[in-house]
């Protein structure tokens, strides 16, 4: 081994090791940063919302019907939400990849799961804002029956589906973002994994959107959504660290 010792021999420096930062503090710092960047750039949420509104208008004219209900209504709602969500998924890690956020995070003495949690929460926030815009617009532009009696059931279905979309979307976005064709790869990988959520969401909410005004979503499909969320949650926690590694 080639070893070079300089003439000057400074005394040994004894410093305390840096203390690991608590997970919740790291998640809070990352989430705050994510929301600040989105508020400044408005790159994701407005695009997702506009996409959903445009799609409802297109369906309104393409179907040549004044109103939809039941299976058809649920299908239109969930397919629109899925594609709008994909827009957000595609942008989720772009600022980190392009502006060195990954490196900065990897240099810090923090639990790497914090980034997964923060990104899931970020995507959940985006989806909630999207649905605050999209669901009333859907009810106004397309839905025949009133949404009022079914609202609670629909909110429960949306919550379970959003969690699944956020977990899978974060996992796929982290995989795709470091590739050259990330804009293509993200949706290609995400769509097959998100299709069961669309199926579950549509089947669970179809009875709610019928003219007969059933107020409870299909329990079997809610359970399916919950299980799917759980499985992919565990997979995401197991894989995420490796996705950040060289």
């Amino acid at each position, binding site marked *: 081994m080639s070893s070079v010792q300089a003439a000057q021999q400074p005394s*040994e*420096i004894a410093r305390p090791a840096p203390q690991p930062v608590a997970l919740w503090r790291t998640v809070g710092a990352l989430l705050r940063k994510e929301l600040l960047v989105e508020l400044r750039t408005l790159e994701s949420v407005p695009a997702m919302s506009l996409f959903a509104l445009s799609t409802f208008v297109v369906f309104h004219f393409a179907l040549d019907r004044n109103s939809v209900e039941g299976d058809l209504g649920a299908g239109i709602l969930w397919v629109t939400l899925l594609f709008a969500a994909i827009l957000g998924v595609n942008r989720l890690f772009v600022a980190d990849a392009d*502006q060195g956020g990954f490196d900065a995070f990897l240099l810090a003495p923090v639990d790497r799961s914090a980034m997964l949690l923060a990104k899931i929460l970020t995507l959940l926030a985006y989806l909630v804002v999207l649905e605050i815009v999209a669901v009333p617009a859907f009810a106004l532009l397309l839905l025949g029956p009133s949404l009022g009696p079914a609202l609670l059931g629909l909110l429960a279905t949306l919550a379970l589906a959003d969690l699944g979309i956020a977990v899978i979307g974060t996992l796929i976005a982290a995989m795709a973002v470091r590739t050259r064709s990330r804009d293509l790869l993200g949706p290609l990988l995400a769509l097959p994994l998100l299709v069961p959520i669309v199926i579950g969401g549509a089947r669970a909410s179809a009875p709610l959107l019928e003219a007969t005004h059933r107020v409870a979503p299909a329990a079997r499909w809610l359970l399916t959504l919950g299980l799917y969320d759980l499985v992919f949650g565990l997979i995401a926690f197991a894989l995420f660290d490796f996705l950040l590694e060289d």
Partner: protein
Amino acid sequence: MTAALELEGLARHYGEREALREVSLSLQQGQTLVVFGPNGAGKTTLLRVLATLLRPHAGSVRVLGSELPGESWKVRGKVGLLGHEPLLYRELTARENLRFHARLHGVSDERVQEVLESVAMSARAREPLRTLSRGMVQRVAVARAVLHDPELLLLDEPHSNLDPAAVELVAPLIGVGGDGKKRTRVICSHDPSGDLTQADVVLGLRAGRPALLRAATEVDPAEITELYR
């Protein structure tokens, strides 16, 4: 006396291309290693391996007493990296960026203010980074790299985009640690006239291999110029 860096036969490749090969050296705490070499010689790759951002593909690498990549987690938080990219978000202000990094490293807001003042950026700290000049962004990046008072500072052309006054401004920040002692540093440079004077040890890289490794006092600047021919 503890070795801050111990490299033995370090190799790293990207696909078929070898970026580093047979790099062996030792650096003691408080010393400065200056790495010279033409573009593509492997300087940045060396820094990224030492920062735990890239895995070594062969050889042994010990940083601050921890073996990489197995003990990378022990090194994180003790290393400061100033690379080609500032590792800052363009849409956030200088203060927001530094506060974000402070949270990740468990550093107080008072320290954020202290480093902002050290790089003379407190007056512009509320402006988004995208509105600042490159030199100002580099000053904020220096503040970010030393925010947590790292034991090992890895600097890739730290003076790029800085005017002479700013070079003088950041010199104490990257030269002396919070304990008042000389920082352990690895500096990648193309400027033998300026950075040779800061070096204790000089490494010259050519096509990923060490072409020069000697105490700085024994290096003739002409040897460094030769690396670029």
